[in-house]
């Protein structure tokens, strides 16, 4: 590793992987509850398990983003991190706050948790993905600001590359749009309107800047292609992202009480959102084909190509599938949504973090790349998790099409629960694909401990 302070990234990566395991275990609980309705009831009702599953996802992705930034920024800025001590302190604060929040979800009824944590002072809880108690939300803001301070100062004292600037914009945007999670008016239409300013403007806006920046960094390192070329691509990609994605928010304003013109704005702009994802895939393949060197870390290159392809499939193709208003009228809030949510989150954000970890972790452990045995194992885990996710998505899509048909399109629409019973088979298959995903994840972790011949020191 070039700068000593890059080492603070390591605990972040380890925590990210640990929380990822927790996320998947709760995913499997949810999947079982879909078919064995009273599984773990009333100890862990579905809504509690779901909060744990989605919040762990968000938190591990944030750990990954922070770790990635701590690793990347010193190298890009060509200077030590402004304060490695602060970074380490924030790590523990964030980890403890996150753990306490999860324990809170599991240990007491949600209403009691709300009562205990001061939800009466400022009502922010009980909205999808933003379920965290007020102290946790405030903690996230504090950690985010201190983290931003730390890396912004590092960039300011060092070299300011385009990759760093795009990353900083993405991370600052992440913090700024999170502030809308504190706005929860009694008017439910306004509540929903601004809820999307956090959720949509994250995943289809500023997070894509983080994604693009990480991808560009790893591509420069592994392919040796000229920085000018890579950074030009990066700007083109993030331009496409924001000019489609910001107004693309309108695809969530079709049926929540907002004016009908959003059906036009939302459909047209969000239909263009796949373009930046497509560009990312082309970008990754193009750079790898034009590589000037053979980097020993084959696994990291595989993740880089994989995240391009899977983000395009999950966000681009599966997003487009239901983003036009006349289609969304029927698919809104069904298993189609869940299918898309899974592949998009996995393909774009889980995989880009795994790419960064794959590239950085060996170097943090004192070698340019892992030995052959370890890399082979990691590539197996790549394929297992990715193929499992493809099947999860396909099964949910099948379930979703049937659900829409039985419940919304047919001449004799069935009640929700009756339709659900008829599509159980697909939920069983999704669960088995989930088990395969877990096996892939276990192999992934095993790859860290597989010794074998180690490549040259970093």
């Amino acid at each position: 590793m070039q700068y000593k302070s890059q080492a603070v990234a390591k605990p972040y990566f380890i925590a990210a992987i640990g929380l990822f395991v927790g996320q998947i275990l709760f995913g499997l609980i949810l999947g079982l509850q879909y078919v064995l309705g009273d599984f773990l009831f009333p100890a862990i009702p579905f809504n509690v398990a779901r909060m744990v599953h989605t919040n762990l996802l968000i938190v591990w992705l944030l750990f990954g983003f922070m770790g990635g930034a701590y690793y990347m920024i010193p190298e890009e800025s060509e200077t030590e991190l402004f304060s490695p001590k602060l970074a380490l302190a924030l790590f523990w604060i964030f980890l403890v706050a996150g753990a306490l929040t999860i324990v809170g979800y599991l240990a007491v009824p949600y209403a009691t948790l709300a009562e205990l944590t001061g939800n009466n002072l400022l009502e922010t809880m009980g909205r999808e993905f933003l379920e965290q108690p007020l102290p946790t939300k405030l903690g996230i803001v504090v950690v985010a600001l201190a983290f931003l301070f730390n890396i912004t100062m590092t960039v300011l004292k060092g070299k300011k590359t385009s990759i760093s600037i795009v990353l900083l914009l993405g991370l600052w945007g992440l913090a700024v749009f999170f502030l809308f999670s504190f706005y929860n008016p009694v008017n439910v239409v306004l509540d929903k309107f601004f809820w999307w300013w956090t959720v949509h403007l994250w995943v289809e806006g500023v997070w894509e800047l983080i994604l693009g920046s990480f991808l560009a960094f790893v591509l420069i390192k592994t392919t040796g292609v000229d920085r000018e070329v890579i950074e030009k691509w990066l700007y083109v990609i993030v331009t496409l992202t924001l000019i489609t994605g910001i107004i693309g928010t309108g695809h969530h304003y079709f049926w929540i009480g907002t004016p009908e013109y959003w059906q036009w704005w939302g459909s047209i702009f969000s239909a263009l959102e796949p373009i930046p994802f497509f560009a990312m895939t082309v970008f990754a393949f193009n750079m790898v084909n034009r590589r000037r060197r053979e980097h020993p870390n084959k696994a990291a290159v595989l993740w880089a190509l994989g995240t391009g392809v899977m983000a395009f499939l999950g966000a681009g193709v599966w997003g487009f599938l239901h983003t036009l208003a006349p289609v969304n009228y029927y698919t809104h809030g069904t298993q189609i949504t869940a299918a898309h949510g899974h592949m998009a989150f996995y393909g774009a954000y889980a995989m880009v973090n795994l790419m960064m970890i794959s590239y950085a972790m060996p170097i943090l452990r004192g070698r340019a790349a892992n030995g052959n045995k370890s890399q082979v194992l990691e590539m197996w885990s790549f394929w297992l998790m990715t193929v499992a996710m493809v099947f999860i998505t396909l099964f949910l899509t099948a379930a979703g099409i049937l659900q829409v048909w039985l419940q919304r399109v047919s001449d004799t629409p069935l009640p929700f629960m009756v339709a659900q019973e008829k599509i159980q088979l697909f939920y069983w298959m999704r669960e088995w694909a989930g088990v395969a995903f877990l096996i892939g994840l276990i192999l992934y972790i095993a790859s860290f401990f597989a010794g074998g011949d180690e490549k040259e020191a970093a």
Partner: protein
Amino acid sequence: MSGAFTKSMARNIFYGGTVFFFLLFLALSFDTHSQLPKRDMRQNITPQIAEGKKLWEVNNCIGCHTLMGEGAYFAPELGNVVVRYGDEGVKAFIQSRPKDGIPGRRSMPQFNFTDEQLNAIVAFLKHVNSINDANWPPNDQG
């Protein structure tokens, strides 16, 4: 990309494009806010409805159900549940959930709401049902 298109041109388009489309988004949002009072029925929001929304939130109903199509997909849409069940039907349903669930079936918790709380929840759900949401859902099954 050809040599004539430089990185600094790409950067300028990035900043210009982002600012332009963000401002356009703000303008649309501003216009939406001026139109919302005609659609979101805010004039009908009573303290009881506000209480209902709070109960909806602190019990994390959205963790299983959708509301106007947003939320979880484990249990039925509730934005129009008053159409399916009627006020009394909704209350009776919530009240009659067995504490230990229903063997083998997706089970809803027993929240032990008071009558007053049940009325607030129903008032909130009726309010949501009255919002002009462009005729969604496609039919009463939600």
